[in-house]
């Protein structure tokens, strides 16, 4: 079967400490998947190593059957909002246009057609009136929408998003959910690092429970069980015994 995201035996170590250990994840195309787990579970590392930003100690990541380096143009990335300096001297349209830098290649500057594309994706997130606004004047929710617009303009098949709901207002949250569901309708695959367990069943089709190791992944109704959650968030000793118990059955 052709998986949109196919992660096998992925191990990532920071300095000498493993942050991901022997993780597997297969995501079929056209699925909205939430990646959940406690702080320090390696969620961001999972995304970053999928995007080739961190070199894994072992394992492989395939996007639609091929390594990321060959699939760049079909993958988009929304980093955590807090990872950049929003006082940077640039405006909204400019940030969205950055999504097209990959397609433009070396030395070429974005022109009129790029700006038109960027405006279109700004309209998709309801931010077209803010095109010339300096980014430091945006609210948290608006910043997040700008980052989403930048990913949309990449026109990808697979989207990786790191905490897009972090610190946004209710209106923006609804707008983002709608956007994600639209993407799925177009057959895109979206992997989202998510914090709010309560909304997982409502927003997503699939879920991955992660705590350094993969606890479980698959359709929400099968995987999002109390047992699995306790293993993900509960004590680590408890988790091993639960795992062995499950295995011996």
């Amino acid at each position, binding site marked *: 079967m052709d998986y949109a995201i196919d992660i*096998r*035996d992925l*191990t990532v*170590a920071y*300095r*000498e400490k*493993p942050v991901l*250990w*022997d993780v597997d994840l297969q995501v079929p195309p056209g699925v909205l998947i939430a990646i959940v787990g406690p702080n320090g579970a390696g969620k961001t590392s999972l995304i970053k190593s999928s995007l080739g930003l961190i070199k*894994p*100690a*072992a*394992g*492989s990541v395939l996007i639609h059957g091929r390594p990321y380096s060959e699939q760049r143009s079909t993958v988009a990335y929304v980093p955590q909002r807090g990872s950049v300096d929003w006082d940077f001297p640039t405006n909204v349209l400019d940030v969205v246009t950055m999504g097209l830098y990959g397609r433009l290649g070396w030395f070429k500057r974005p022109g009129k057609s790029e700006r038109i594309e960027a405006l279109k994706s700004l309209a998709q997130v309801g931010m077209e009136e803010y095109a010339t606004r300096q980014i430091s004047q945006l609210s948290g929710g608006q910043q997040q929408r700008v980052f989403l617009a930048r990913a949309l303009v990449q026109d990808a098949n697979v989207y990786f998003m790191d905490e897009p709901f972090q610190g946004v207002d209710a209106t923006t949250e609804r707008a983002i959910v709608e956007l994600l569901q639209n993407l799925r309708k177009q057959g895109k695959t979206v992997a989202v690092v998510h914090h709010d367990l309560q909304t997982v069943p409502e927003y997503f089709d699939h879920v991955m429970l992660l705590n*350094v*190791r993969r606890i479980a992944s698959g359709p929400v109704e099968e995987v999002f069980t109390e047992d699995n959650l306790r293993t993900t968030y509960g004590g*680590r*000793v408890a988790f*091993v015994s639960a*795992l*062995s118990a499950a*295995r011996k059955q």
Partner: protein
Amino acid sequence: MSASLEIQLIAVVVAVTCALPGVFLVLQRMSMMSDAISHAILPGIVIAFFITGNLSSPWIILGAAAGGLLTVALVEVLRKTGLLKEDAAIGIVFPALFSVGVILIAQYAGDVHLDIDAVLLGELAFAPFDRITMGGMDLGPRALLVMGVILVVNVVFISVFFKELKLISFDRALAGALGFAPALLHYVLMGLVSVTAVGAFDAVGSILVVALMVAPPASAYLLTDGLKPMIVVSVVIGAVSAVAGYWVAHWLDASIAGAMASMSGVLFLSILILAPHRGLWSVQKRRSNQALLFGRKMLVIHLYNHEGLPEAQHECRMDHLEDHLRWDHAFASRAIRSSLQNDYILQQGPHLSLTETGRKYARSSLVEL
């Protein structure tokens, strides 16, 4: 006492006095404040000199301390406007203050026996000739006495406020919550840095004060964990740099202060490379050993995860490991051999399976994670 011995003694006292507040600068990520302060005390010194007309007056030290605190306050004001980040604020404030000092000296060069090169670079070799006498009795070189007093002040301050300093170094917010007035303590500490800098700057010059304040504590940071050991080790490294620097300078007939800074750098570099646990060499060695350890652990856990499941037939084959764990053939063989030797796995043709020991090892490794 011979001049050579006196110079070495002064050098050691200067180095130790600088290392003490330096420990807290390094821990609080404010090392560059030593650079800023050691430059910005210049206008304070010059203005105090204009007022008193005397370079050895205690007012000079107060003027310098005022210059240092002014830097700290200006950086704070600029940062609070939200228009500049802290590093930019530092990078703008101290060159401006230093420039004021240089221009004042240059303009009144005729009247001031302040040589800008000496301010910047210091000259320890002449220190034994500037002596303090009282009632005809020789009390010793002025630099030694001044620095000795500052050393005592530093030691007393750090001993009295040890607990508080420790707290603001490791958890500033908590210190505030407990009512320790971290801001006040911060300013007192910066005042001490200024006073230390002005005392040391006669001997080693303003730029090299930075070396003595930052390099020994940073070296100690690679060797120790607690605050007390870090202070002790910093002091020792500072003193060793001072004596070694003196002899290198003696041998090359070059600047003593420069050689002291160079030696503190050589010590830092050696410790950086050779320090047990945290040194580059040790980290590198552990990494390459750990690659094998890591590989063994991964192999065992991989087998454990797939044990008894339908895909085991496929997942637990040797060739699969190379494929999926992205191991090259040589490394896979090493990991398998090492696991066989440790009695973690059994091999039957291309199939691998866990022993009971291996299962235990896998479980304990998982707990570690």
